[in-house]
């Protein structure tokens, strides 16, 4: 049998998470005050939203049918979440029919999928698309990488030295728009994942190749610096995978002293990236260790995690974890390469390391083969699909479950680093990457102890 592949990467909105309704403090205070409670009851008995038109009501019903049927047919368990799914239909369909607004219909559908108690099942309003995807039309990028650190957009790497932009600078404005309100808005929404936040910021910094973005930075002295930044062609080569639109893919490897350093932006362009990964490992056969930097890597083709692990594990019969799908259980097995590296391996992760990155890092951690540095990963390992519902909302659903070799679901848990290290603006301004430094320090100590 040919090895199945799995696609988990894609647009930022693939990582919307389930938001369980929580009790608000306001609700508690209303219940404690009889007058307010009476007022609340009056409000509740009155339609807050305008009455639905026949078309909107039909769209909500069609959306419910789509959600219910999709979970029935695509969930990896024939009784999704251990529930009697047919009985769920009987329970929820009348409630949708009685819903007086799209918001109410959405809440009912969220309640239904919430009973699965599984992540990667979510419904979110169409407005989320608008906030996340704004401005990001075009492949051009500003020639520097930026991350959200401690609520600020910070330049973490500069690929265009002549631009005068320095690592550690803060991006304050793009084309006259302050980034701070955007960050406040997105960070306040628990449905927005760190990975999406980063993508939303990246979208503000990008645009058509050749376009000029007027940007305001805070430099190392927090002085405002205004620069016109011409957007460059994307880094790397475009590569697609079946129905997935082509995306730029880049791979870099270098030596930091006698330690190998490997970084790539996404698990795609399989043939080239696998070849370069193998070459980089073989060129480092006598290195003191290898650092694999998966920070900001959203995942991609799941099978590539298995293949890369084969360059780092010599023992046959090992696996990274197990994926459960309807009709199949797949071992993410490791086929050791003849020239597999057996020195220390450090894997760097952060909240934007998702999916295949988590499978790779989590599996190697569970096997005791790699030490993980950075911050907890996105906890978004499942292959999921996002589709638009007839009423315009987004619907995300997972088609498999994945258990890492240590027996824990990565979904909802993520990979917890062995050593938690935050990237800081201060260190970047001083020319240091604290996470890389920690990994190198650990590898050097391994060498000394040997």
């Amino acid at each position, binding site marked *: *049998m*040919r*090895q*199945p*592949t799995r*696609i988990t990467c894609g647009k930022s909105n693939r990582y919307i998470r389930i938001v369980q309704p929580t009790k608000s403090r306001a609700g508690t205070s209303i219940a404690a005050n009889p007058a307010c409670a009476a007022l609340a009851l009056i409000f509740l008995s009155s339609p807050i939203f305008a009455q639905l038109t026949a078309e909107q009501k039909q769209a909500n019903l069609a959306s419910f049918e789509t959600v219910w049927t999709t979970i029935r047919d695509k969930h990896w368990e024939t009784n999704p979440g251990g529930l009697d799914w047919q009985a769920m239909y009987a329970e929820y369909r009348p409630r949708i029919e009685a819903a007086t607004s799209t918001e109410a219909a959405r809440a009912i559908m969220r309640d239904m999928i919430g009973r699965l108690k599984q992540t990667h099942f979510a419904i979110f309003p169409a407005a989320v698309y608008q906030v996340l995807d704004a401005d990001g039309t075009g492949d051009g990028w500003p020639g520097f990488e930026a991350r959200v650190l401690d609520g600020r957009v910070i330049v973490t790497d500069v690929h265009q030295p002549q631009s005068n932009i320095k690592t550690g600078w803060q991006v304050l404005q793009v084309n006259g728009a302050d980034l701070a309100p955007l960050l406040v808005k997105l960070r306040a929404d628990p449905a927005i994942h760190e990975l999406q936040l980063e993508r939303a910021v990246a979208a503000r910094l990008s645009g058509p190749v050749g376009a000029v973005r007027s940007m305001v930075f805070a430099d190392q002295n927090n002085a405002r610096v205004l620069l016109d930044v011409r957007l460059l062609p994307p880094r790397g080569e475009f*590569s*697609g*995978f*079946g*129905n*997935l639109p082509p995306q730029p893919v880049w791979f870099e490897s270098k030596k930091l002293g006698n330690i190998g350093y490997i970084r790539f932006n996404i698990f*795609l*362009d*399989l*043939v080239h990236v*696998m*070849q370069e990964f*193998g070459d980089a490992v073989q060129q480092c056969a006598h290195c003191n260790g290898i650092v694999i930097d998966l920070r900001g890597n959203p995942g991609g083709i799941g*099978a*590539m995690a*298995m*293949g890369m692990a*084969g360059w780092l594990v010599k023992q046959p019969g090992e696996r990274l974890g197990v994926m459960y*799908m*309807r*009709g*199949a*259980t*797949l*071992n*993410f*097995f490791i*086929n050791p*390469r*003849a020239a597999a590296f057996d020195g220390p391996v450090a894997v760097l992760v952060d909240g934007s390391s998702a999916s295949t990155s988590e499978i790779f890092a989590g599996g190697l951690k569970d096997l005791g083969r790699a030490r993980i540095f950075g911050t907890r990963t996105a906890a978004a390992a499942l292959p999921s699909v996002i589709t638009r519902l007839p009423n315009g909302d987004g619907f995300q659903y997972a*088609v498999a479950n994945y258990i890492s070799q240590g027996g824990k679901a990565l979904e909802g848990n993520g990979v917890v680093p062995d050593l938690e290290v935050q990237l800081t603006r201060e260190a970047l301004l001083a020319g240091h990457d604290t996470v890389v430094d920690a990994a190198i320090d650990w590898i050097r100590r391994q060498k000394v102890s040997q």
Partner: protein
Amino acid sequence: MTLFTRLTFLGALAAAFAAAQPLPKAETILDRYSEVTGGKAAYQKHTYETMTGIISFPAQGLGGKLTRYATAPDKEYSALELGPIGKIESGFTDGIAWEKSSILGPRVKSGDERDQAAREALFDSQVGWRKIFPQAETLGSESVNGEDCYKVLLTPPTGKPETRFYSKKSGLLLKSTTTAVSPMGEVAVEVEVSDYKNFDGILFPTQSKSKMGAQQMNMSITGVSFDQPAPAGTFDLPPEIKALVNKAAGK
């Protein structure tokens, strides 16, 4: 007895008669298949086979081409070039089943996976099915896409059994089910075949639709030729595979 009653009675009698008819033996069904697809002489006159085809995974939007070389008695080499996944090669030579891909690199198959590859490599498997399936049993009748079929269970000495469905009318194979085995696990496979075409006296199904778990794969055979030897070295073990074999043997 009214006409209607008589017809009903006759119908019931016919059904009872049909139900009472013994099912043909599995070996009769299998031997009939080799006959209707060309016959023993046609199969045995060839010693080389080259097959080309196009493969697609519609849900993923992936596609590629397959080339397969086989020679008697049991050597086989396949190359699947699948766009962004690259080339996946596999083969069976001198009892060694192997695979090589951009993702996983080279590996030697073992256990049930190796035995499954050995069965697939047997050049005269249609005529010589007894060599690979010592047990064959007709389980009953079942419809495949509206066509009545005999359902036959084939059990190899090791590994997973295979169920095949042969048209009662034409004797042709229309469907098979089995469990594919690999280090990634076991996956139920269902293959429906159609559009038989004559290639140098032998009928081949030129279209197949396979379901492997949730995956669907379609294959279209574009050409089958015989007795043109494969390019030199096709069936040789690749150096990486030889190295793995030697390492396992302690050489």
